[in-house]
């Protein structure tokens, strides 16, 4: 999806650069560099960020379902089976690949998959409950509240990110359309301007700035801190 978006952006940059400079080489360079940026960098960081968020949401579902099932069924194996129903194939395969039958060991093993502080705390609570008993819902009340608040924060952040990116894209589309319209607005005068080296370099500079601002936008969008996930 990111690569497709990058392809569209690089084609758009190429077209606008060519319309405003009449120079195929510099326009191809602008389009090429943009595509490379998306292919090599943007795709990777956005994929990591999405993976982090999806994993956290899976972790939240797992912990929530597990604790509720444990309070109803009273045993870990039943709670684990119920919690796994809401999980993706990757998690289920990971659990099934383990040689042990001990459900508590399986829950502990998932620390390698759900690398969040919240999950480690959850494992500590389940271990304590196994050793000493008690009302698991009461014991995990604060933990569940905190995970829920983190989940709500993530949902809010994703919504804000989407709105910002849409706004950002529309504004840049307007800004670059000024360059494209020049050719038609200035007509004969444009023929003289386009021969000016300073104008050619300036257009390249504007696209460099546009790419820099895309980089800043991506850095801000992926900047999400979930405790424990490096």
């Amino acid at each position, binding site marked *: 999806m990111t690569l497709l978006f990058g392809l569209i952006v690089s084609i758009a940059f190429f077209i606008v650069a060519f319309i405003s400079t009449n120079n195929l080489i510099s326009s191809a360079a602008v389009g090429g560099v943009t595509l490379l940026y998306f292919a090599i960098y943007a795709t990777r960081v956005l994929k990591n960020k999405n993976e982090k968020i999806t994993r956290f949401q899976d972790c939240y579902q797992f912990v929530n379902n597990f604790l509720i099932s444990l309070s109803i069924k009273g045993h870990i194996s039943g709670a684990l089976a119920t919690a796994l129903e809401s999980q993706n194939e990757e998690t289920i395969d990971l659990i099934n690949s383990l040689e042990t039958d001990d459900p508590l060991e399986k829950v502990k093993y998932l620390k390698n998959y759900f690398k969040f502080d919240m999950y480690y705390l959850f494992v500590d609570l389940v271990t*304590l409950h196994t050793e000493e008993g008690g009302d698991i819902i009461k014991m995990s009340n604060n933990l569940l509240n905190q995970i829920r608040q983190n989940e709500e924060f993530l949902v809010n952040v994703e919504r804000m990110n989407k709105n910002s990116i849409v706004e*950002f894209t529309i504004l840049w589309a307007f*800004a*670059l359309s000024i360059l494209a319209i020049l050719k038609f607005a200035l007509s004969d005068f444009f023929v003289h301007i386009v021969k000016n080296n300073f104008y050619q370099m300036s257009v390249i500079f504007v696209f460099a700035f546009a790419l820099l601002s895309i980089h800043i936008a991506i850095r801000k969008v992926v900047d999400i801190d979930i405790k424990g996930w490096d």
Partner: protein
Amino acid sequence: MKNRLRQKIEYCGLDYKSEIKKLIFINLLFSVLTAIVYLLTREHNYCIYLILFDLIVDYLFLSNYGAKAKAIDEERENEFVTAISYFEIFIENRNNVYQSFNKVIQYTSEWMKEAISSLLVDIDKDKSVQPFVNFAKKFKIKIATNIMLSIYSMVDQGESFEQIKQFQLIFNELLKSKQLENVEKKKRSLSILASLPLVGAALITILLTIGVISIIGDLVNVI
């Protein structure tokens, strides 16, 4: 002033002598560059521009420590909130204050580990409120002292239901305000994005104006 700068640099975890060497190196570089430019061009203006640019670089270099120190304070505040929220989970589950802090250590950064370890060592030696107050002083948020005092009251009067409830009341206020702050911080961070295309549009307009004026200038000369 020298001491204040030294304190700021050391607070950021950097070596004072290395940072001063970097600053001297930058200034030497600019001095050499200015000398070369003057020898080649014999123009005073270029030298003045280079000196001014050097002064701006010096100012940015030195003011960077203030920003770094502020970022460190903010990170420590967030760490405090996180550590106490984990503490809350442990204290509600049959752990006393000492055991809860011991368990929290594994979830913290190196700096926080040292701070909590130091608190635990002080609690062993001094059964008064002082270790808790000293721990709270490491953080710039005022409510840290209230929270640590309510934790001390748990040690002093036992981890009863009322003591835990009182602690939770104070801590939940901090948690709520931190959460709102985090949302506002994210909003502010994203709001800058809207200004970037406007800067781009302004650049296009300025560059276009310069281009047009230079063409007109050429045409006028020809006439």
